[in-house]
């Protein structure tokens, strides 16, 4: 193939999903999803529970048949194929390690099924265990491992087959915070090392922002927005995304609703000189919460509604948290730092939308 002279040909999508629909009884799990995932990318499907992201993953793996729509892997329609004929592997939320096999046999399982010969199998399993930092634990039974170790075995068992796509279903959900943060870094490293397309399902927005090349935000069986973590955070296109990813203030200004992040709202002394380019609202600080790195202020605006602002605590004692409570301030934000939001009708008019 020679495209040197013409337009650069985009590489074929690792996964292309077209018009996917799936319902379980009365519940609509997927309500018409179209999505293309590029080869080699770390792609995250983010959403609250019941938003359809796990169903999406299970449709790609072949565990669920969509009611409508197609699944293509590297340009090939695999919609009708059973899971064992798809070149994808899954890391399950509950790990699903075979309890009657030791770690070695668990990791070798896929290779044994494909009749890879014994010495080659040993070699690749050893390499996979090495990659996930479990070298030498091959003879342990899954029941003798900690949660974090089981998680790594599940990862090794999938990666050892060198699939073109790895599907991960909330793989860190059962781990405690420290372990989870460690594994986030490590997953990203492994993904870079092996160069496999990762499709990662999570409800944790921080996890999604930290690891992903791109994020799709799911809500009620549909995709609200697809973009890089920075785009999703800085330029949420819908009210749902603005609320679900991080914290946003939703503000009406000139007949349009804007989302503005708390760290981009400045609190000014009402007696000082206000910058002319900013949108200004007078108000009173009603609440301050010390968060360590940041302090968060809630400001009740004089003409109704409220705004949340955060400030980094750059110097020790620079702002003792009680300083501002009850004080009159001016909340200022720049229009070019805010994003226009499509409002869903039922929520228009509320000013502050917060979400964990």
């Amino acid at each position: 193939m020679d495209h040197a002279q013409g337009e650069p040909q985009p590489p074929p999508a690792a996964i292309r999903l077209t018009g996917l629909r799936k319902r379980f009884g009365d519940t609509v799990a997927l309500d018409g999803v179209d999505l293309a995932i590029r080869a080699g990318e770390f792609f995250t499907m983010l959403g609250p529970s019941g938003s359809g992201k796990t169903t999406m993953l299970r449709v790609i793996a072949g565990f669920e048949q969509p009611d409508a729509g197609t699944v293509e892997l590297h340009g090939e329609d695999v919609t009708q194929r059973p899971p064992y004929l798809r070149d994808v592997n899954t890391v399950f939320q509950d790990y699903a390690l075979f309890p009657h096999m030791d770690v070695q046999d668990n990791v070798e399982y896929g290779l044994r099924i494909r009749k890879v010969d014994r010495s080659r199998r040993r070699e690749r399993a050893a390499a996979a265990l090495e990659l996930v930092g479990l070298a030498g634990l091959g003879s342990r039974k899954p029941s003798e491992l900690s949660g974090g170790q089981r998680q790594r075995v599940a990862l090794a068992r999938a990666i050892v087959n060198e699939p073109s796509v790895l599907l991960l279903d909330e793989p860190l959900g059962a781990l405690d915070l420290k372990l989870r943060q460690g594994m986030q870094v490590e997953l990203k490293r492994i993904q870079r090392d092996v160069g496999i397309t990762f499709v990662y399902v999570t409800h944790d927005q921080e996890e999604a922002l930290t690891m992903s090349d791109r994020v799709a935000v799911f809500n009620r069986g549909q995709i609200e927005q697809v973009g890089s973590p920075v785009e999703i955070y800085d330029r949420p296109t819908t009210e749902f995304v603005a609320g679900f990813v991080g914290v946003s203030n939703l503000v009406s200004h000139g007949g349009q609703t804007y989302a503005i992040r708390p760290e981009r709202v400045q609190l000014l002394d009402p007696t000082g000189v206000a910058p002319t380019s900013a949108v200004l609202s007078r108000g009173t600080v009603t609440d301050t919460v010390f968060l360590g790195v940041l302090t968060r202020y809630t400001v009740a605006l004089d003409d109704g509604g409220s705004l949340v602002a955060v400030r980094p605590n750059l110097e020790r004692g620079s702002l003792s948290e009680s300083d501002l409570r009850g004080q009159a301030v001016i909340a200022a934000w720049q229009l070019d730092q805010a994003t226009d939001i499509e409002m869903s009708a039922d929520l228009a008019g509320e000013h502050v939308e917060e979400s964990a």
Partner: protein
Amino acid sequence: MELRLSRVVLRLWVAAVLLFLFVPIALVILYAFNDSRIETWPIAHYSTKWFSVAWHDPEVRSSLWLSFKAGLFASAIAVVLGSAAAFGVHKYRFFGREAVSLLLVLPLALPGIITGIALKSTFDYAGIDLSLLTIIIGHATFCIVVVYNNVVARLRRVSGSLLEASADLGAKPWQTFRYVTLPSISTAVVSGALLAFALSFDEVIVTTFTAGAQNTLPLWIFGAIRLGQQLPEVNVVVVGVLILTVIPVAIAVRLTGRAGIR
């Protein structure tokens, strides 16, 4: 104080129940070592001579052998049919599934005398002579239930994601069955088979209707007690039956308890 008192009472209660259950059995065991032909308390002289007598009694031997064969074949049939039924009921959702699963368990709850009479009239009607075969069929009716129950309970505990993981790793359905399902339920099948064997080995009622002229060990005991001539030998044989029943049951309990899905 009240707590301690209730604890003491509770302990005494448990002890009383255990005594109630096991004193008769202990007595039989003791009497097996009684030197005398007549059962008197306290036992005057102990001896093992009745063990030798029983061992060399051709009737005891042939009934022991018959019981053994019946138990073996009945549990073999139970393993095949019971596990197959368990897979069917567990895996497939079909119309009347609940009814089928109830019908499968019913023979165990049904009074043995009904099963016995029903089988006897069926055999008569079909012109089948009572033999080892009819004993085996009779025993299989309740042995299948035991294996079925055991395997169905285990299948419920095998997480569905294990089967999905296997398929995900490229295994065709038969490979998943061979490498994941079967190993996960093997101990349940074995313990079911052992329980079935133990049940078959001391079954009296159904056997009475299906045995014809031959005696299984429990039938021999039953007859010998009624005649009253060979009581010391009966005690010895009962001890034998006891051991042959307790051992498989104990193994079965260990298998079910330990080898769950961890």
